[in-house]
């Protein structure tokens, strides 16, 4: 569109321009960030506890004040004015600055923590040292880069969560699930593991465990050092280990059956929590093309296969090392995994084959063959080799998926690719939940007869890149593996067309294809084709 840009003022016109209070809030928030940056440049603050408090309070207050300045004087309703005009939310200059800064932060966090002040020996310096007082207060230990990250992450979910609630204050579904992610992040991801660390002694040594962080998202949960720790910590440790196993094999299937993957992805998960709160301003940047959908299906399921092979290899390796220590032997474990996967595949194939598209069938068979042949090779060869060295697999997964994909790309590129890149393309947990949501769940988004006007708000604001409109304008239910049930499509719809629901399994996928309003005979012809 040939928009004539006649405005020469620096801050722009409404709805782009900032109001007075927003400017104050920006200064406040940035001053909080500044303190952390100064610590990063090794400015040694005298009273670290005080300065850290000032910093975090300023950061939080700045974000919340900005939200107040943005929404408090508006009426309840959808607040997307100017989203595509503002530099930060339309891949403009500030978006690139933010993206590059975040990416840089993740690279330093994962690969160069020494720049944050991590010292292999002795006391921390820099930013990590600034966070020491808080860490000592919670766990009694000095801070690590992960503590710094966890604190900032929690602050972000909390402060931007308040912003999100303000923005969607007319929508109870949005408010409740945001309170939920704020709670799970603060309590489960941040505080409880720190308190658990306090319980540790020489005889009792629980690993850092965010209880809601379920394997395979928590891909390292069953590594040897953690399993050993769990086992060495008596009944509590054993209970936690068992909880980790039933989380994925029992709790997840039940809740996903009843509510869809949203119970996890947009009510509990920390990655989802950050995407929904801090990432909300970028949700519309997801790629909606069919091509992107195709890439998504292959990439996310490949990651799932990767994590299954990797985890199987890692576990079988340490089972193999020490058959005395674990009641499960390597042989039993490998055969068990193979039988489980084959059975799972068989059940899906038997009951749901018709619902799988051609490429999904090829993919499913291909992946099953790959996984089973790895297991067979490993079993037959009898060596420590799992085709690749298990340790190599683990390391490359941790580097490629755990760090680069979920962190650097997934979060660092929020302002460029949208907020759910990791959840959509990479997260193996989302892949498992998605398979179940598509095949065995009561969840769907229903559409409302003939009311859709194809405006495209739903598709635009879908963070997972689902072309919601394509279904809504046909009057079809939306049952997509990737849907995290954030509810924003329903919120932004100006005609009341979309509703997230849990309902009976019958006709869930096909839905009511009849676009109401038409004479019934005509619809028979239309639907026949």
């Amino acid at each position, binding site marked *: *569109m040939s928009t*004539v840009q006649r405005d020469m003022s620096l801050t722009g016109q409404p709805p782009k321009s900032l109001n007075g209070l927003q400017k104050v809030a920006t200064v406040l928030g940035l001053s909080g960030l500044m303190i952390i940056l100064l610590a990063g440049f090794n400015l040694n603050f005298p009273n670290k506890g005080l300065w850290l408090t000032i910093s975090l309070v300023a950061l939080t207050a700045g974000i919340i004040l900005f939200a107040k300045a943005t929404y408090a004087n508006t009426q309840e309703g959808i607040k997307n004015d100017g989203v595509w005009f503002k530099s930060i939310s339309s891949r403009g200059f500030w978006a690139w600055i933010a993206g590059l800064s975040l990416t840089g932060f993740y690279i330093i966090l994962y690969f160069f923590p020494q720049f944050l002040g991590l010292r292999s020996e002795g006391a921390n310096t820099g930013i990590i040292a600034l966070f020491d007082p808080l860490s000592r207060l919670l766990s009694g230990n000095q801070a690590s880069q992960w503590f710094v990250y966890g604190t900032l992450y929690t602050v972000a979910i909390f402060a931007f969560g308040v912003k999100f609630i303000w923005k969607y204050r007319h929508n109870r579904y949005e408010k409740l699930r945001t309170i939920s992610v704020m709670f799970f992040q603060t309590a489960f991801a941040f505080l409880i593991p720190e308190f658990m660390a306090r319980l540790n002694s020489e005889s009792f040594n629980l690993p850092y465990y965010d209880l809601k962080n379920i394997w395979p998202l928590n891909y390292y949960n069953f590594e040897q050092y953690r399993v050993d720790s769990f086992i060495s910590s008596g009944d509590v440790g054993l209970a936690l280990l068992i909880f980790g196993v039933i989380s994925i094999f029992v709790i997840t299937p039940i809740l996903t059956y009843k509510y869809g993957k949203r119970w996890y992805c947009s009510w509990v998960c920390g990655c989802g929590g950050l995407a929904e709160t801090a990432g909300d301003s970028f949700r519309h940047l997801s790629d909606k093309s069919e091509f992107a959908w195709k890439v998504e299906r292959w990439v996310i399921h490949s990651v799932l296969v990767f994590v299954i092979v990797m985890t199987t290899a890692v576990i079988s390796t340490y089972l193999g090392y020490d058959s005395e220590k674990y009641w499960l032997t390597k042989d039993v474990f490998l055969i068990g995994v193979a039988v489980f996967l084959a059975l799972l595949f068989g059940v899906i194939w038997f009951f749901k084959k018709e619902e799988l598209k051609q490429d999904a069938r090829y993919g499913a068979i291909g992946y099953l063959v790959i996984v089973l042949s790895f297991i067979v090779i490993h079993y037959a060869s009898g060596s420590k080799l799992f085709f690749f060295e298990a340790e190599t697999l683990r390391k490359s997964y941790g580097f490629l998926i755990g760090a680069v994909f979920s962190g650097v790309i997934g979060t660092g590129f929020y302002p460029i690719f949208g907020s759910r890149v990791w959840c959509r393309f990479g997260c193996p947990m989302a892949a498992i939940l998605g398979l179940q949501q598509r095949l065995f769940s009561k969840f769907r988004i229903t559409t409302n007869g003939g*009311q859709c006007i194809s405006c495209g708000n739903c598709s*635009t604001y879908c963070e997972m890149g689902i072309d919601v409109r394509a279904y809504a304008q046909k009057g079809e239910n939306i049952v997509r593996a990737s849907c995290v049930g954030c509810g924003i499509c329903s919120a932004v719809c100006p005609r*009341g067309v979309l509703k997230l629901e849990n309902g009976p399994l019958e006709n869930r996928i096909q839905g009511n294809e009849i676009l109401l309003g038409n004479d019934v005979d005509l619809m028979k012809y239309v639907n026949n084709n």
Partner: protein
Amino acid sequence: MEHIVIIGNGISGVTVARHIRKRSNKRITIISAETDYFFSRTALMYIYMGHMKYEHTKPYEDSFWKKNRIDLKKGFVSEVKPKDKKIIFNDGEEMAFDKLIIAVGSKSNKFGWPGQDLEGVRGLYAFQDLEYLEQFAPNKTVCKKAVIVGGGLIGIELAEMLSTRKIPVTFLVRESSFWNGVLPKGESEMLNRHIKSHHIDLRLSSNLKEIVSDENGKAKAVIVEETGEEIPCDFVGLTAGVTPNIDFLKSSEIELGRGVKVNRYLETNFDDIYAIGDCAEQYQPIGNRRAIEAVWYTGRMMGETVAQTICGTKTEYKPGHWFNSAKFFDIEYQTYGWVNSERNKKENEIHFHWKHKDDTKCITVATDRDSGAFLGINTFGIRMKHEIFDRWLTEEKSTDYVMQHLSKANFDPEFYATFENEILSAYTNQFQTISS
């Protein structure tokens, strides 16, 4: 191979093309002078407000058309020659057709106001209108004030659009209350308050007398008929309804009224020429519907219907129960069946009205006084399920039944507060003499 030519790439033209392609291998050409690809006209406002970009308003990817062998041609048809079975473009090019479907939509009404053709005066219907608006009202510096003339759905959308850029808006509405030719009093008055709460200068019972020109032929003010007040402005939005965009057919011998006259099969007076969507005018209105229906979904349904006919199954256009929806700033509106305004309702139509104390939600239910039958419902701020009301209307349920079962029809998101009990007790109080 039979060549189907469709003039207009809006929802009607595109739907007919898609359904012909589903059922046949005919050659299909869609002609438009507006945009290269189909976009959702109803979303124009969201582009101006920055919610979406133009590309997001396209319901199909650009590759869709080639994949489905639907030819798109950009061009302006200036003449139709039914007897020669050809159309002529304004550059002189000709195109032959075997069947022609006219789906050219509407244009904004102009009622002969002095100054209506000045610069800075425009309706809001086509993509070019949006570009025009970006030129004359890009921000509150270039456009210090805008006046909107005509209180309907497009008028209130335009008011919302301009207000997102903080451009002060005066909204001239001919009626004594916003849209009260369509809405009952309680709803219309609630919307008056809502419009004002968004800082729109709403002037009811106010007609446009004249648009005043500056020395360059650009609008600089409007004069209000009733008061003679001159309101300075930089942009005037003409939103007093739309009318079929059929000037190019005047010499064609195709029978025209306000729109292209069609029978129930959407056929014009020439074999092989059809008209659908906003520009089609029924010889006899269908039920309580208007002869010309400028509504998104009726365009879609007419497209589906004609596609069946063209592919060999002659099909009558038979729209079912009336329904519609809109959004007035922050308040969503849905309607199922018929709820008439005080001005239009017949003697036997009685209303039950409930309004929430927050003044953003209300419903009105219309009942046949004699039979107690449910005639229709308007809801504001509460989403209702189309399927349920369609069924209840078909089954001719009583209003008592509808009110008892209202929660079944609720379509609000999960965890929303519900008001069915409150509504039912209000209804029982008001109508106890009738229902007992």
